[in-house]
Structures are given as C-alpha cells and as structure tokens.
C-alpha cells in the first residue's frame, strides 16, 4: 500500500492541537520521517487533520431500498462528508434481526468506501413484541441495537431488553417518542404548528420517553443511548441523569442544530424529519449541549428518500433528510468550536462504537489511518444534484455552509482528495 505524507496541517485530537506533519504507511499512521521519499504528499496547510469522523446514525438504503440509496452511493456520500465509519441502521428489508442478515449487510457494505458497522434490531422485525436474538447478534460483533422509528413503546418490553442485553455489552439505542402523545403529528407542536394548521408533537412526547427510559436504565444498570434527541428539556433530563451516574449517552441530528419549526413556513417536505424540527430555542440548546459535551454525538441521521416520496402533501410525505455530506459543515456553520465538533463527530462516537477511547484513537503512530482533513473556512452551497447520495431530500437544499472536507483517508487509502472522490 502506498505511503502518504500529510504536510502542514493542524492536527486536532484528544491529546491536543498543533501543527505537525503526519505519515501514513501500510494503512497505519507512522512518524513523518518514517515514510519513504516516494510517498504521496497531501498539502494540509490551513486545514485541520482529524481522526476520521464516525456517524452513529445513517440509513444506507441497502438492502431493500436501493432506489433511495445503495452502499456505493451512501458510502461516497459518507467519505465526502468526512466519515470514515458509519453505523448502518437496521430498518432495512429484510430487517437486521439475525446474524445472517448482519453478514449479508456486511457483504453488501464492501461496495462502500467507508467502514460500515451494522446495527441490529431490538425486536424481531422491529415489531415491538418478541426480542431479537441479541446474543447471536452480539456474537457476530453487533454493538448497537435499535428498533428505529419511534422506538420501543411498551415499558415492560423496554425493561426486559435492557436487562437481557446487559451481559453482552451491547448498547441499547432508542429514539424517544411516546407515540400515543404524538399521534398524527407532522411537526413540532407550538406557535408554528398552530399557524400552519399541522398536527404537532409536543416536546413532552419525547421528554416523557427520555424520563421513562432513564428510570429503566437506572433500574437495570444497563447502558442506554438516546438517538436524535431534539428538545432542550431532553438535554436537561439527560444531563441530570448523567450527573447521578446513570449510564446514558445522547446524540443529536445535525439538522436539529440549525433548523427550527419556523423553517417549515413554506411546507418544504424535505424539512419534515423525525423527531420534528423544534423551536429555535431548542436549536440553541442543542448547539450548547454539543459545545459543553453534554450531548455525546452529532449524527447525520442520513435518511435518503426518492423524489416521489417527498412530492406529496406534507402529511403524506415520508420523513427524513440526507445528511452525510452536510453534517460537519452544519455544525461548523453554527460556530461550534471545531474541537467540540470533532469530539462529537469523531472521538465520542468512536468510543461508543468500541473503536477506542479518545486518547487511544488519535493521530499518532500505530493507529489505524482513518483520517479526515477539513478546511474549516471553505464555503459551499448545498445541492442534492451535485451530492453523491442518491437521495434527493436535503433539508439544507440551497443553503450556504462553511467547512469542507478536503481529504478522507480510510485505512490508509485516500478516498477523497480535494473534495472529490478519487477515481
């Protein structure tokens, strides 16, 4: 494998920040003076050199929804967005509820330019009734299980899941949404839903579920990860739980850092997401939570859809936005310090995924060469026509964002160079 010399960049990792050269040989990071003179040189002047970004929440389309996305197109989108690892959600067809499907998805994922970790289902077919074989899933290396959608509604089942999963060291991940309280909801409940005449989900539909699951995590001592929290109240509840010693982590979707329910005034269905865009005060709380470290991860919640699923009346349109190619830039555009952004988009998600603690997985000799090189100042405007994802639904269509991925290196191989996928 060819050697690389990344020259003149500002290395930012959990061990500190400093301008230094980085060498790569045979898929691992080496001292810059250890690379041969024939090494390819990457000029990283004015750029930040980081451990590869890790996305804990991406719907990759394949298997089952190849019209919306494939491992090939989704993988390209991931590396263009700086992600060297994505956690593929299990709401595929078939659902990832057995070891056999895990292996099938891994085989498909060979077409992706990034590493793809596979999340499993909590219940068979995510139907919320029978437990999936969590031991079998853990045996083949599944680290995260989630039923996606609104998550486990039945509290007894949720208790059993947390108890049963504990010995396997598997993380139970749960979107928080009390369906009976948010029935029919198309957006956040508040001044804007009142004005736009759309049924709203109150913040409490999420917060009640966060409180319930924290109670159950405390009861069982299990590790719990909240997917895509969206309200200031949820962040405060999680913060209090963490202080009291409950083993709970939380992620926020990048669109919840920047967009609010007021952005639905023109009924743009690409901004219909789950959980819904909340109040502008919630976006501020989300950014503060990322900066303070209260929120562990920023995720893309990449949910590609075909055009026809969005060109419907708002209440019939499928939810979700693509996000792999914009998540980092959205966080940087929101003026969150890049160190905090990298903590939430590389160090912490890698740790939660078992890829190594922030002080182990660093830009230092011996580490696997998963590296993202970012120009934090370059601006670009978002267009799904030019994006690599096959999904056509970006909540940020037409927006101008700051912070562009210049190069992405996966296991020592340069897959993105100068913002383009390498041939």
């Amino acid at each position, binding site marked *: 494998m060819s050697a690389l010399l990344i020259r003149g960049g500002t290395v930012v990792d959990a061990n500190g920040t400093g301008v230094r050269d980085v060498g790569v040989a045979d898929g691992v990071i080496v001292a810059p003076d250890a690379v041969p003179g024939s090494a390819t040189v990457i000029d990283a002047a004015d750029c930040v050199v980081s451990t590869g970004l890790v996305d804990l929440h991406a719907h990759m389309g394949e298997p089952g929804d190849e019209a919306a996305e494939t491992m090939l197109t989704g993988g390209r989108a991931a590396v263009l967005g700086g992600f060297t690892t994505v956690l593929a959600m299990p709401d595929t067809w078939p659902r990832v509820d057995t070891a056999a499907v895990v292996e099938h998805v891994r085989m498909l994922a060979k077409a992706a330019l990034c590493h793809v970790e596979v999340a499993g289902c909590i219940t068979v077919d995510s139907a919320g009734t029978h437990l999936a074989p969590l031991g079998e899933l853990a045996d083949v290396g599944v680290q995260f299980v989630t039923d996606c959608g609104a998550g486990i509604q039945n509290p007894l089942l949720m208790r059993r899941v947390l108890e049963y999963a504990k010995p396997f060291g598997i993380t139970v991940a749960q979107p928080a949404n009390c369906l009976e309280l948010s029935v029919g909801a198309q957006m956040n*409940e*508040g*001044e804007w*839903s*009142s*004005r*736009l*005449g*759309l049924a*709203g989900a*109150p913040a409490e539909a999420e917060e009640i579920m966060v409180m319930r699951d924290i109670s159950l995590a405390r009861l069982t001592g299990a590790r719990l990860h909240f997917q895509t929290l969206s309200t200031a109240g949820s962040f405060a509840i999680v913060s209090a739980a963490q202080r009291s010693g409950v083993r709970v982590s939380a992620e926020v979707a990048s669109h919840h850092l920047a967009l609010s329910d007021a952005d639905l005034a*023109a*009924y743009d*269905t690409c901004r219909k997401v789950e959980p819904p865009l909340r109040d502008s005060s919630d976006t501020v709380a989300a950014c503060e939570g990322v900066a303070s470290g209260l929120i562990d991860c920023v995720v893309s919640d990449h949910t590609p859809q075909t055009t*026809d699923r969005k*060109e*419907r*009346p*708002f*209440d*019939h349109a499928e939810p979700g936005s693509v996000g792999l190619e914009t998540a980092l830039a959205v966080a940087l555009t929101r003026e969150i310090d890049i160190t905090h952004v990298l903590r939430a988009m590389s160090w912490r998600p890698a740790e939660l995924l078992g890829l190594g603690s922030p002080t182990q997985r660093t830009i230092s000799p011996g580490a696997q060469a998963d590296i993202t090189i970012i120009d934090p100042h370059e601006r670009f405007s978002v267009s799904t026509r030019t994006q690599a994802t096959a999904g056509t639904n970006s909540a940020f269509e037409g927006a101008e964002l700051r912070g562009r991925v210049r190069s992405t290196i996966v296991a020592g191989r340069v897959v993105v160079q100068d913002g383009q996928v390498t041939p």
Partner: protein
Amino acid sequence: MKHLLSIDELTADDLRDVLRITPSFAEVAQRRISKVPALRGQTVALLFYEDSTRTRLSFEIAAKRLSADTLNVSVKTSSVNKGESLRDTAETIEAMGIDAVVVRHRSSGVPWQLTKWLDASVINAGDGWHQHPTQALLDCFTLQQQLGDLSGSHIVMVGDIKHSRVARSDVQALTMLGAEVTLVAPPTLLPPAIASWPVRASHDLDASLRDADAVYLLRMQSERQHEALVPDLREYTTRYGLTAARAAALEPKVPILHPGPMNRGVEIAADVPDLDQVVVVDQVRNGVAVRMAVLFLLLGSGSEQAMPDEVATAGATR
C-alpha cells in the same frame, strides 16, 4: 398579486381593495344578463381533492360570470394515498392549458407546494386546518354590510377552532381590519400556543356573548368526541352551542354567521337558523361576488383601474 394562498400574505390595503371592489361584482349578479367578459378566453381549473359543494359551486359561478371557462377536476384523496405524486397531478392539469387553479385539499400546505410546480395562479379554496382565504374575505364583506367599519367591533367566534381553516383565516382578516376577536371553545378545541394569536380566548360563551357585535359559529364534527376532545355532543351543545335561549338573549341587530354546512342541533339549535339576524344566505351570496373580485384581481388585466370599464362594457350589452 399572482396567487391567493393565505390572508397573512395580504396587506391590510390588499384586503381593503378586494372588499372595496366586491360591490361592483355583486351588482353584476343583479343584472338580467349576469355576465361580464372580463376573463373571456381564460380557463380556471377547480381542483378539489376534498368534497365541497358550496365552495366549488361558488368559484364556478364566479368564474362563469366573468366569462372564464371552468374545468372541474375531482380527485379522490385515495389516489394520493395510493402514492400518486401531487406534482404529477398538477402538471398534468397545467399541460392542458389553464390560467388558474382553485385548489381544495385536506392537507395543509398543498397550495404552497403547487406554486413551486405551476406557472398558473393558485387560489386556495381551503387547505387542511390551515387557511380558507376567500371564506375570510366573504365573511369580512358580510360583516361590513351588517356593522359598517369593523374597527373596534367585537366578533365572537365559537367552536372547533383547533381544526378550523376558517378560524385561522378569519382571525387574521378580522384583526387586520381592526376588529377584536374572542375565540370561545373548550381548551381541547383551541389551537396550541393560542397566546401567539391576536385574540382573546374564552371558555365561557355566555360571558363572551354579552358584548358581542357579531357571533360566528363553526361546524362541530361528531368525530371529535371519539378523539376525547369533548365528552359528547350534548355537553358540547350545552356549553358551546347557540341554543334558543342564548340566541334569544342576543340583541336582534347582532348578526349570526356560519360557514356552512350547519349541524342543526349541535352548534346551532334547530330553529335558530331561521332568525332574521342569521346571515348565512348573505354569506353565500357574497361569496360569489368576493370570488369574482379575487379572480378578477389575479387574472384580469392586472390593474384595478380597468375594472369599471370592464363592468361598463358589460353594462352596454345589458
């Protein structure tokens, strides 16, 4: 003005302009030949995804009195449920060569979506719980006929505000004209964040009626009791219906409005609609004139100055 989507996209001047020219169009209806050539050669598609006899007929008559051709398109909502793209339907209709689309849809926001895909003018004839701007215009016109200038007048609107596009449009239009609006409903039938609306909210109908200059009743649908929003229609009628006793306590000069169709015995007692102060028929009549005014402003020669000539030309053919 190219489209008429919602009242809050209009300025108070726009609103007053429509109301000011409406009498000229009302006058056309009084003629022996109640037709003017203002929109001759133009085609108006009536795209109704939701059943609505009176609004569709009103727009159709309005368009025909202006000599526009009309195209009735009834689209079963089920075809949307089957996955038909809204855009496909709209583009198909436009390809047939139309100048305006009057759209009624049970989903809020559809008229906005259509403007992205169509070159034609879009007129919102009611979208979900959101807006019904021509209803608000005809209600304002009717109230002005009854009360004169609406500035400072007190309008009491009663019923299922939460699910009502009429309430959203009327509140915006009435407050734009300086009226004070009180919304009366059980808390479960008021919209969320009601404090952000420029109204008073009340749960006491009798107290609100005491200083009402006009009463506006909204249709109460029986489905609401299945959603646990009200216990049953009997309790609703007792507390929020215009019973015969409540109607009798009103001054005879206080007009009673309803967007129709009325549920006699629910929001309005069976005999109350027959009182002289009930102006539902005026609302329907004015609806045609207001919709003529809207069609004329959107599709006519573009200048309001041209209007008297158009009417005068028609007068010559009388």
